[in-house]
């Protein structure tokens, strides 16, 4: 398991150093600095030197690092590092050099609690916050007075939720967020189109509520190959779904129902993938030519293919230009287009785009003459967007039922969003 945990800044200075096992020394951090931080060409998140392995995740301006001396589970180490980042966010907003320095004592305190001998222990933020807080007096009091409540919470079967949560108004917000992955070839063929979905929930519910959640899905897991039954039109095929720790997996396995006692506040209830019948929100037609060695001409035609009643926000089309571009003239009917020399992109921004709307960009890039013989590799055009109240997979929330022994009424809200951030790519 994890022998040591470090946080470094970009200069390679140690911001946090905690050894969990006696099989290595603090000086091991020098090795990481030399091998990874000072190395301009790091090609793996895992580096193994002899028996020692370094696992790192870069976030903002720090490196979060786990070191092992055994045949550790790589998945576990990374999941732990991700979790540490999540916890840090929950405690002090953002994980960066400044916040680490501002909270180093708190971080040590947290580490002592969530790792023992390198084995991750309870890492549920809600429970941790019961006795480790940024105000030491409060933690002091909690530990002194509620200790047995804390220990039962931290080791029990619903370690993610306290029992004494109270709200005057009981509300639950469900956000269905879909990231659309699309790759289109030069000739307009869709090479891949799939959706990574995420269902986020913000539960502000009193007591210990038991929730049941329903979607218009049918899981294709079992039925592949032998198609049985008629295909109902509004059911969405999910290739796979993964659930938060709180969801009873046994129940899901037996009757496909999603039931759980939610943590208090925000959490990711489930993730899913869908690959069939994806509604692509945008179509792009490209015509890019290189009439001479010093010029590239673009005509990019963008069409919003979702319902006219819906809107997309912050549509950004990034159109690559050759490295030796000196100047770009771009004309657009809608939005604004600008050449960003540092990134070699023409960035076309459309703040709001209604469904079925179409718009066009025409541009000319002037190139400097070079001796460089290598032809331009034409990275794909990228479309970033978020379309509200639209799911590319067609997924809908059917119901969310909340049962609590006090029998209170609760209000539920559902929102849908489909977005892309670098994952919607068109080759040209």
């Amino acid at each position, binding site marked *: 398991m994890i022998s040591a945990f470090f946080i470094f800044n970009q200069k390679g200075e*140690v*911001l946090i*150093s905690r*050894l969990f*096992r006696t099989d*290595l020394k603090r000086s091991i951090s020098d*090795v990481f600095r030399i091998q990874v931080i000072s190395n301009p060409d790091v090609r793996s998140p*895992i*580096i*193994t*030197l*002899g*028996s*020692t392995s370094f696992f790192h*995740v870069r976030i903002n301006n720090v490196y979060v690092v786990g070191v092992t001396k055994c*045949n*550790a*589970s*790589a*998945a*576990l180490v*990374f*999941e732990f590092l*991700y979790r540490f980042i999540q916890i840090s966010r929950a405690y002090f907003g953002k994980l960066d050099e*400044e916040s680490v*320095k*501002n*909270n*180093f004592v708190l971080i*040590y305190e947290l580490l*002592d609690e969530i790792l*023992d*001998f390198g*084995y991750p222990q*309870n*890492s549920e933020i809600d429970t941790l916050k019961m*006795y480790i807080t*940024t105000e*030491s007096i409060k933690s*002091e009091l909690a*530990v*002194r007075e509620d200790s047995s409540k804390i*220990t039962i919470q931290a*080791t*029990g*079967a619903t*370690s993610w939720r306290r029992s004494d949560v109270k709200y005057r108004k009981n509300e639950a917000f469900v956000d269905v967020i879909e990231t659309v992955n699309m790759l289109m*070839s030069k000739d307009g063929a869709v090479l*891949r189109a799939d959706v990574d979905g995420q269902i986020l929930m913000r539960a502000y519910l009193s007591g210990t509520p038991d929730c049941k959640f329903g979607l218009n899905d049918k899981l294709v897991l*079992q039925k592949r190959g032998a198609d049985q039954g008629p295909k109902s039109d509004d059911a969405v095929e999910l290739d796979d779904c993964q*659930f938060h720790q709180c969801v009873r*997996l*046994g129940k*899901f*396995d037996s009757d496909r129902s999603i039931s759980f006692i939610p943590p208090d506040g925000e959490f990711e209830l489930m*993730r899913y*993938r869908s690959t069939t019948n994806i509604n692509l929100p945008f179509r792009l037609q490209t015509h890019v030519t290189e009439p001479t060695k010093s010029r590239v001409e673009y005509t990019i035609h963008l069409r919003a293919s979702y319902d006219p009643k819906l809107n997309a926000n912050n549509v950004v089309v990034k159109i690559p230009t050759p490295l030796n571009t000196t100047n770009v003239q771009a004309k657009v009917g809608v939005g604004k287009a600008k050449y960003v020399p540092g990134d070699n992109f023409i960035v076309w921004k459309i703040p709001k785009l209604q469904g079925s709307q179409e718009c066009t960009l025409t541009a000319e890039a002037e190139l400097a003459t070079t001796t460089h*013989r290598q*032809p331009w590799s034409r990275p794909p055009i990228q479309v970033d967007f978020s379309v509200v109240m639209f799911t590319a997979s067609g997924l809908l929330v059917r119901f969310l039922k909340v049962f609590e022994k006090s029998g209170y009424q609760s209000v539920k809200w559902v929102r849908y969003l489909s977005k892309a951030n670098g994952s919607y790519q068109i*080759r040209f």
Partner: protein
Amino acid sequence: MADAKLFTRGRTEELRDELRQSGDRRDKGFLRKKTALKKIVANMTMGNDMSSLFPDMIQCMQIQVLEIKKMVYLYLVNYGRARPEQVQGAIGGFLSDCNDRNPLIRGLAIRTMSSIPLPHIVQALADPLRHGLQDQDPYVRKTSAIAVAKLYSSDHGRRLVEHEGYVAMLRDLLADHNPTVVANAVSALVEISDRSTDISLRLNATVAGKLVAALGECSEWGQIYILDSLLSFVPQSHMDAEQLAERISVRLQHANSAVVLTTIKVCLYLMNYMEDETLIRALERKMGPPLVTLLSSGSEVQYVGLRNILLIIQRRPAILQNEVKVFFCKYNDPIYVKLAKLEIMYRLTRDENVSEVLAELKEYATEVDVDFVRKAVRSIGRLAIKISSASDQCIQTLLNLMQTKISYVVQEAIVVIKDIFRRYPNQYESVIGTLCENLDALDEPEAKAAMIWIVGQYADRIENSDELLEDFCFSFREEPPEVQLALLTATVKLFLHRPTAAQELLPKVLKLATEEADNPDLRDRGFMYWRLLTSNPTAAREVVLCDKPPISTETDRMDKGMLDQLLLHTGTLGSIYHKNPNTFIRTAKPKYLPDSPALNASSRRHRISPQGMGVSTLRPSSSVPKIPQRQSTVPASPQATRSVSQAAAPDVSPPERKGTMDTEDDDNLADPYGQLGDLEFGSGSGGGMGGGYETDAPRPRGAEEDLLF
């Protein structure tokens, strides 16, 4: 909470003064004491040696303020080992904390003490730990369970553990009613059994069943520890394996990728003990989607997932066989993800999808990253060899790519085209002309050697082959051995094809190889040719110009027995490097697929046991009839005899995986060259650098570096 201003280097004396002066009556709420301690912790972090403050820190132990206590304990864990004499002063404080009425404090004290493996401390911990393992509070019990594993990692501690019988107490905790306690007890037992030579964890069906029942209530980490321990359960019947696999497979839906991969590890393990094809197939189908879902995770986890998928699909090709598209690279994937995806794409390509994959690879070959481009080009060539119906298309793609004149693309293409010639003799020689246009671009040994091989092999068809070789020989002395060897052989071939053309060149090269070269291989080969040519030219002709056995892609598939062994490490470092951990981690013990009456015929046939490989892994040539596995080295135990009789029984079970993808069955060894190919790829030149197909595979670096720290 702006502690950043405390995060500055200070001098030990100043910090000591600050610590001593604080904490009196005027220091309300110990604010100044806390500040001083924080500065000390900061300096400790920065690597500033604070160990001389030890006595002052021990003084602070008396202050009953939790925040202070935690900082002092952190300090003691850090410097305790360096100050064995002074640490004794802390024992009193520790012991009183072990008896605190607050479980969090009791846990803290036991956790801290067990992290300081010094004789005094270990001795003092004996009683509190025994109590801790039976404490009424689950927090203390779960902390104590891990503490036993901690003690076991040091010599003194190990003696104490053995003397006090803590391991038996841990075993009792497996029946604890608190899920976290069970999980930690399991992880402690697994750790101890990994370290120990005489204790090893063995679970029977009942205990395994109880552990699985606890899974539902465990934290995600606890689930991982319990799932991991299930490898210590050896199914005694097919039913055992089937039931367990069925019960744990629900974990495949968990959001934590480590839970998913550990579940997959256990399922793959159990499949070795399952017989029912439909159940195996169903389990395989369940594993596919969660594996693909790993690709929606952070890039680090994606990487772990991809490396594992590559192993899994070699052993269980039915999983993911229709999923090649999800492994297409995104332009903005990190390079390590892209390289790992390419390898999987190659494996999943079949007749039906080869055009799609080729179009993708062609696209990648124009990208910027040199390694990625090379690997893409190489993959095109490998596909030509793997899928004969696509070879025309592949060759055409390679020729088009060579027109870019990008040096590394051209060289990579030449290397693979050489292999394509080997695979399809007399089909593509018409492209030699195009290859020869690019001679000037060659500056890498592998590409040069490949081109020289081509010139030698087709010396009779290439008009100016003698001139070309002569040009190459110009720099003979400076070339690396790989190229020199290729030149030597090619010149001999030229001589045998066109004696007059090589009249001058041959003696020159032979002389260079035998008289001037330092490399013994080169010298030996030179002498060998020389004698062969002088003593019996006809024989030389037969030997040198014989028909080459065609190569195939069989050679880069790993043996099933090796895969079964590697898959016991699914999700771990071993699965990243595709190596058994004991080959690169000093303390790691080798793992073997345990024998049991339930082991199915296929897994048994390939099984690698501690005594060595199964017979078939030695790859007898196809002409030799199959020998039943004979475990003669095993002392006559009932188990061994049983396995012999089972293995010898001719085909009692239906043939494995009928009608699946796995057409390349192991018995299909019509490839006598396979072995050699393997060696060639494996050893490459100088540890594989610049050599075969595996060169860019991630690997742990040399064990000699271990000595550094």
